[in-house]
C-alpha cells in the first residue's frame, strides 16, 4: 500500500530536513528514516510499550505499590519494571527461546511453535498483500481460509490414498476452495462492478455458517457423533513433521516459504504481476496499454484466494488434523494485519506472519506463568494496526522527517 507516500503536490512544503547539506549521505539517511520499514518496526515498539502499561495497570502488585507511591517510590518502580519485565520475558520465552526449560528440546521448541502458528498467517497474508498491490481490498481472507480448510480436510478423511500424494491432493483441494470463494468476488467485481470489500465480507459469513451446517451432517463429518466436528484426517494426508515430536513444525512451513518466493516472483519479475500492479496503480492507463482490467481483477482474486485456501489447508492438514467450527480461528482477519504490517511486500508479509505467530505462541506462556491476560497480545496487535494505518502519527511521535517525493514543479 502506498498510504505512507504523502502526495507531493498541494500541501505546504515539507519541513526542512536536517542541515541543508546536499549529497548522497543525506538522501540515504532520508530514505532510511522515512522508509516504511522503520515505521513498521517503530509501530511494533510503540505497541509493546503501550502493552507494558496495560500489563502494569492490570497487575494487583503494581496497583498496591502505586498506593504507596509517595511513601516508597523505589518499591513502586521496581515492582512496575519487574512485572512488565516478567510478562514480556515470558512472552519471549514462549515465542522464541525458553532458557528456563528443562531440556534442550523444550528450550528451542517455542521458536518452532511460532513458525507453526505463523504458517497459515503467512499464506493468507500473502494472498491479501497481493490483492492490496493490485488495488483490491480482499477482506475475505477468513472465508477463503475456511473454504480451503473445509475442502482440504474433507479430502483428508474421505479419500484414502498413499502418503504425500494424498496430502498434496488435499492441499490442492484447499487451493481450489479458496480460489473459488475469492473468484466469486472477483467475477462479480469484474462483471458488475460489485464492491469487493462488501462481497468478500458477506462471503466470510456464508463460509462460516456453511461449515457450521456441514459439520452437523454425518455424510460430511464421517462420524456418528453429534459433536460438530469431523473425523480425524488420515495419516497419509497429514503434512508431515519436519522435526520429530514433541516438535509440531510441519511441511506447511516449507510451503509458506515457497509461496513467499512465488509471490515475489509473480509481483516483481513476471508479466502477470506487471499487469496486476498496473491495474492496481492506474486502471485507466492499464486499459489504454491494452491490459484487460476485468480479466486481471478475476485472476488477482483467484490467486489471492488460492493462497488463503492453502493457508486453511495447512492449518487443518498440519496442525488441527480435523475440522471444527473454529478451524480458522481469526487467521483470515489477522492476515489483513500481517499484510499491512508487511507493507504488502512478500518478505515483509513473511516476517510479519512469523511475528504474529510468535505473539500467539508466547501469549500462552505469558498467561500461564505470570497471570497476564492473553488479551494483552490482542491489544498489542490491534495497536500495531492502528499505528500502521497512521504512519504520520508514528513519524511525529519519533520526530522522523516526512518522506519527500522529489517535487514535480508546476
Amino acid at each position: 500500500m502506498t498510504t505512507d507516500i504523502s502526495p507531493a503536490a498541494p500541501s505546504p512544503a515539507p519541513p526542512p530536513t536536517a542541515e541543508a547539506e546536499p549529497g548522497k549521505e543525506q538522501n540515504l539517511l532520508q530514505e532510511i528514516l522515512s522508509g516504511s520499514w522503520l515505521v513498521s518496526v517503530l509501530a511494533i515498539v510503540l505497541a509493546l510499550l503501550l502493552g507494558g502499561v496495560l500489563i502494569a495497570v492490570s497487575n494487583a502488585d503494581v496497583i498496591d505499590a502505586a498506593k504507596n507511591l509517595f511513601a516508597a517510590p523505589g518499591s513502586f518502580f521496581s515492582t512496575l519494571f519487574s512485572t512488565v519485565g516478567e510478562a514480556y520475558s515470558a512472552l519471549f520465552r514462549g515465542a522464541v527461546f525458553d532458557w528456563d526449560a528443562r531440556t534442550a528440546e523444550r528450550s528451542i521448541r517455542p521458536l518452532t511453535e511460532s513458525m507453526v502458528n505463523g504458517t497459515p498467517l503467512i499464506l493468507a497474508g500473502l494472498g491479501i498483500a497481493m490483492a492490496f498491490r493490485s488495488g483490491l481490498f480482499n477482506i475475505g481472507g477468513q472465508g477463503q481460509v475456511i473454504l480451503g480448510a473445509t475442502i482440504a480436510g474433507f479430502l483428508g478423511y474421505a479419500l484414502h490414498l498413499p502418503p504425500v500424494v494424498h496430502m498434496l491432493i488435499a492441499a490442492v483441494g484447499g487451493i481450489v476452495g479458496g480460489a473459488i470463494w475469492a473468484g466469486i468476488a472477483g467475477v462479480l467485481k469484474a462483471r458488475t462492478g460489485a464492491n469487493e470489500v462488501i462481497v468478500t465480507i458477506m462471503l466470510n459469513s456464508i463460509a462460516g455458517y456453511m461449515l457450521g451446517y456441514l459439520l452437523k451432517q454425518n455424510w460430511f463429518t464421517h462420524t456418528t457423533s453429534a459433536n460438530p466436528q469431523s473425523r480425524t484426517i488420515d495419516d497419509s494426508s497429514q503434512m508431515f513433521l519436519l522435526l520429530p515430536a514433541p516438535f509440531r513444525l510441519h511441511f506447511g512451513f516449507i510451503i509458506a516459504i515457497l509461496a513467499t518466493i512465488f509471490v515475489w516472483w509473480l509481483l516483481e519479475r513476471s508479466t502477470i504481476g506487471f499487469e496486476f500492479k498496473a491495474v492496481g496503480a492506474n486502471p485507466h492507463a492499464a486499459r489504454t496499454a491494452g491490459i484487460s482490467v476485468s480479466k486481471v481483477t478475476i485472476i488477482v482474486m483467484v490467486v489471492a484466494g488460492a493462497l488463503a485456501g492453502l493457508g486453511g489447508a495447512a492449518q487443518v492438514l498440519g496442525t488441527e488434523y480435523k475440522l471444527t467450527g473454529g478451524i480458522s480461528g481469526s487467521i483470515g482477519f489477522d492476515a489483513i494485519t500481517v499484510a499491512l504490517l508487511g507493507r504488502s511486500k512478500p518478505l515483509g508479509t513473511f516476517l510479519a506472519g512469523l511475528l504474529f505467530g510468535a505473539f500467539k505462541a508466547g501469549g500462552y506462556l505469558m498467561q500461564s506463568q505470570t497471570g497476564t491476560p492473553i488479551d494483552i497480545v490482542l491489544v498489542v496487535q490491534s495497536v500495531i494496526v492502528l499505528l500502521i494505518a497512521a504512519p504520520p502519527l508514528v513519524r511525529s511521535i519519533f520526530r522522523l522527517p516526512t518522506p519527500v517525493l522529489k517535487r514535480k514543479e508546476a
Partner: protein
Amino acid sequence: MTKVFGSFVANDHIDLTIEPGEIHALLGENGAGKSTMMNVLYGLYDADGGEILIDGKPVKFSGPGDAVAAGIGMVHQHFMLVPVFTVAESVALGYEPTKSLGLLDLAEARKKVRDISSRFNFNIDPDALIEDLPVGAQQRVEIIKALSRDAEILILDEPTAVLTPQETDELISIMRQLKEQGTSIVFITHKLREVRAIADSITVIRRGKIVGEASPESTEAELASQMVGRNVSLTTEKDTADPGDATFKVRNLTVVDKTENVVVDDVSFDLHRGEILAVAGVQGNGQTELAETIIGLTEPRLGTITLDGKNLVGQSVKSRLGSGIGFVPEDRSTDGIIAEFAIRENMILDVYDRAPYAKGLNLKSAVITEAAKRKVDEFDIRLGSVFDPIATLSGGNQQKVVLSRELGRDLRLFIASQPTRGLDVGSIEFVHKRVIAERDAGTPCLIVSTELDEVYGLADRIAVMYSGRIVGIVGADTSREALGLMMAGVPAEEALAATAGHDDAATAGHDDAATAASETNSATTSAEETK
C-alpha cells in the same frame, strides 16, 4: 528571495517589483519555479532567504491568512473550492462574517458577491452551487473571493490553462478592468500569445533564476528563446510529404456514448503512408472519441476501421497495439502513465509481455533497464535514474517517456491526441520533430489537436471536426480564417470561398494576420493547450 527543496533550488535569489495597477507577467517553462515563487509570496511556503516588501515595509507571512490581510489574493491553477458549497459560502469560507451568537452571516457574503459581480459584469449567482458552474465561472468565483478581501495584488497562476477560448477572452477583459481599478495583477503563464496580449511588463524565469525582463512588444520567438535559453523555432522545419498507399481507412464510423449521444457521426477518411493528417476542431467535437475508438477503448456502433487491409473493429486494445498502432493518449496523467511506476516500467507499459522485454511469463529486468537507458539518451529525457517513479519528472519529460514508448517500436500507424498539451516551448519543438521523423520513416500519423499552431506545424492535410462530423479535409495551406469557420461548422467549400480574399494575408504569418475570426481561434487553441 530564495526557496530550496532539499538539494533543489526552486528559486534562486529572485528579485521582483510589482507596480500598482500593472499587469506583470511571469513567464517561464514548466518547472522554472514560477508557482513556487508565488506560493512563497502567498505565504504557503516559507522563503529560505530574502524578504518581501509591501509599500517599502518588510512583511513576514506565516500563512496565507497573513498574505490575505496584507492585500494579496491568489487564484490557483487548480481551484481551491468546495464543490457542494454555494458561491456565497465559498466566498465566505476563511473569513466567515458572523452575526450575534456566532451565526454565519450569509446575507453579507451574498451582498459582497453581488456587488463585485455587478461591478465587473461577472454575472455570478451567489446561490449557485460551485459544482454546477462551468470552469470559467468557478475561476471568477475565486477572483471574487480574492477581491472580497480587498486584495490589491492578485496572483493568477496559469489562469487560462483550464479555460475555453471564450472564457479566456472574458478573463482577459476582466483583467483589464481590474487593472483600471488599480489592482496589480501577477500573471503566471508559459503562453506567449497571452502575455503579449495583456502584460504591461514581463519577467522571464528560467531554472529558478530571473533571466531578464522583456517588453510586451517582443516577438513570440524572442520571448520563447529567452524562456528556454536557446533559439527555438516555433514552426518546425519539415520537407513536403511523400505520401504512399492509403493503408489506414476509416469508413462510416459512428460512435455513441453512454447516454446515447452520437459523438462520432459517420466519419470516413483515408490515411496514407508517410503523411500526417491533423484533426482540428474545438475541444469536445468528437476528436477524442475518434482516437479512442481507433485504438479500441470504445467500440463503434457502426462502421469499419481497416489497417493494412485488416478490420480492427471488435479486436481488443492489445491486439490493435500488436498490429502496430502507437497511441499517445490525450490525458497523459490518467491514461498515459502510471505515476507510482518507475520510469523504466512506464517505458514498457504496453509492450511488457513482448520480446525482448519478456520471455514467457518472466520479465527480463536487465533488458528493460538497458532499453530504458537507451531511450533516455535518444529522447533527451532529463531524470535522476530510470528506477525513480515517473511522478518525479516534469510534464514535458513524462510526455517524452510516453513518446519514447510509443515510437520505440515499428509502427504501422501512429495516433497522438494533444501530444503537446501542457508542455513548454522546448518540449513542443522536440515532440514535433519526432512526429515528423516518424512520418518520414513512412508511418501514417493521425494527430488530434485543438492547437492551431500545432496543426499547421505538423499537418500535411487537415481534417476539421465539428459536432462529431468531419466538416472537410483540406490542405495544410488553408488559411486560419477558413479553418476557424470550418471549426464552427461551416462546410469546407463555403469557408474557403468566404475567406478566399484574405488568403494571402492569413497564411503569411500566424500572428500578424489577425483578423477578428482568426484571433478568436488562436485564443481558443492556446487556451486549451493545457488542462
